[in-house]
């Protein structure tokens, strides 16, 4: 990552917005399409003003039909454009599943490289915003099993910019996940000018030697808070922000585990069959004798979704206290 000063302070919405803006400026092949991305400027105002500047041919308000949003973007990509499709909320991506899994992810493969599909699908996911059953889901585990797709889920403004730039320039389809709770909550320094962060590289956001915590999305921020609290108790915890979910960064995880000899995986998505399952399985296969404790997963409960009522949402979400408590247990194990 070639990060040069100077930087600018931004929140996550601004980071997405600035990156899209620069991509649109830089390359006329870039097209943004989705529901309400035009005059409305996206429901989170990420593309606000874009239609005025780039015109309705490049900032395309689509009909209400997700399968075609992705499917048409696939066709654009096959024909040489660089579409950035938006699914308004990740919960609405299910109707586009066929186009993502059956088509975008298989275009290069089935044509043996004759056609490619350089496509980005952006979508806000995750809870903590009172989004109830259909505006809160995590979707990464429904897609990370799919060869041909890439998935990134950065949650710091600088990572968002670097990874979204990489995603847009990637020659293959990338699912770009934005945790909506972090949109305005998380602020940080973002280098000005164009730079990329390679897809597939995790980032050690905090170094430590007693426990490795692997997370992504909103929970990275809470995990960092929890680790900071435990520092006071003399505990040294390493926090890895996965950032990329497919491909995932084996090296960074294994290197950390060989140092800390303990692993905790934390994610908001349901536990059963979630991302943590693959991480734990990989570690159980490749670093079995490096571990001094069972691999723990602290994840969302295995229920269909968080409810609208505050107590239901709170019960679903993992608190920083819970994270700290589990970390403490593991350090002491």
């Amino acid at each position, binding site marked *: 990552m070639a990060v040069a000063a100077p930087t600018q302070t931004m929140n996550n919405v601004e980071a997405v917005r600035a990156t899209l803006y620069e991509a649109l400026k830089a390359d006329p092949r870039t097209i943004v399409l989705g529901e309400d991305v035009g005059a409305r400027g996206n429901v989170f105002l990420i593309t606000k003003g874009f239609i005025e500047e780039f015109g309705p041919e490049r900032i395309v308000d689509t*009909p209400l039909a997700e399968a075609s949003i992705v499917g048409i973007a696939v066709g654009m990509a096959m024909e040489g454009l660089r579409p950035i499709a938006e699914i308004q909320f990740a919960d609405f991506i299910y*109707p586009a599943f066929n186009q993502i899994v059956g088509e975008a992810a298989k275009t290069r493969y089935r044509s043996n490289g004759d056609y490619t599909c350089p496509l980005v699908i952006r979508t806000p996911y995750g809870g903590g915003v009172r989004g109830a059953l259909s*505006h809160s889901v995590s979707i990464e585990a429904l897609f990370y099993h799919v060869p041909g797709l890439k998935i990134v889920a950065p949650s710091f403004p600088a990572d968002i910019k670097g990874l979204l730039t990489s995603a847009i320039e990637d020659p293959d389809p990338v699912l770009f996940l934005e945790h909506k709770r972090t949109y305005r909550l998380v602020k940080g320094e973002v280098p000005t000018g164009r730079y990329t962060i390679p897809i597939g590289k995790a980032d050690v956001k905090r170094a430590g030697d007693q426990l490795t915590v692997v997370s992504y999305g909103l929970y990275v921020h809470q995990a960092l808070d929890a680790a900071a609290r435990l520092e006071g108790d003399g505990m040294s915890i390493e926090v890895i922000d996965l950032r990329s979910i497919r491909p995932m960064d084996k090296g960074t995880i294994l290197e950390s585990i060989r140092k800390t000899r303990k692993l905790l995986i934390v994610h908001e998505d349901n536990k059963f069959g979630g991302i943590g399952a693959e991480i734990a399985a990989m570690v159980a296969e490749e670093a079995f004798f490096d571990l001094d404790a069972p691999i723990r997963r602290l994840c969302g409960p*295995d229920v269909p979704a968080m*409810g*609208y009522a*505050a*107590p239901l949402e709170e019960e679903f979400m993992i608190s920083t206290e819970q994270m700290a408590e589990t970390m403490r247990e593991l350090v002491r194990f």
Partner: protein
Amino acid sequence: MAKAIESPSFERYGLDDDRLRWMLRNMHLQRTLDNRGFQLNRQGKIPFATGSEGHEGIHAGAAVAFSRGKDVLVPYYRDIGLCLGIGMDPLEALLSMFARGADRSGGRQFPNHFTSKAIGMLSISSIIAAHCPHAVGVAYAMKYRKETDRAVLCCFGDGATSEGEWHESVNFAAVHRLPIVFLCENNEWAISTPRERQMAIADVVQKAAGYGIPGVIVEGADPLAVYKTVKDALDRARSGGGPTLVEAKCYRFLSHTTDDDDRTYRSREEIEKHRHLDPVPRFERLLIECGIVTDEGIAEIKKEVLAQVNEVTDRAEAMPFPAPQELYTNVYEGTHEPWL
């Protein structure tokens, strides 16, 4: 556009005065509840509300056409008036807004996603058009069981007709001539997307031709016309005539939801231009002109409705949230652990 009403010899399609007053009351109840939602949201008491201002005529008319205890409603998320009109207690609307434990979804669903098997009202998700195939499945069951006194009323917006699942639903219902009425509440907008960016046709009913079913346009601001149109379509459905696509024209006067700000995509003038389509004053005028209500009568209705809404607001607000442990129930019948 709506027919001019000049004398008491208006077409009431056999509905008696009480029924007409009931319809007006339903429209006021809906509007008052909507206002209450926006108000509670502004007060920070609830995180979210949806309004249906402009849709009241459709809801009041369709509700009367609906045969209680027989028909099944598969509502859209904007159908609070219709849900109330077929028998839902207004308290339910507030329980849903406040996400209380006594809400029928246990405080799980977003406001306006009602359910009640008891009154024949299907539970829908927020995924646009995903409820349409369910409606068709219900209609299939009715036909299969030869329940010829029953039909399904399936509602959705103009935007929903762009979804593939909508298309597949109507097609299947047409092939099997199922007892179902597809009621499109065309309010010209899907959040910020106007009709002309949603479809290349002037009227949603033009889509009926592709399925081989009749399509009928009705003025949504006229609850009586809606009643007649939906009733005819339901009767036709029940008597084996198959599905009908009804397009009720209306206008969405408010922002999409409390999370939306429609000033970003449409002018105040455009909204005002449509003000004559507001069903509430229109229906009030009609009933006054026909001598069915008086100004005082309307004031009385409003007062009474407000009192009722206040009362259910207070009652709902006083009720408890669901317990956190409720998160884990009703995943499956019985245990829900994936590792047994």
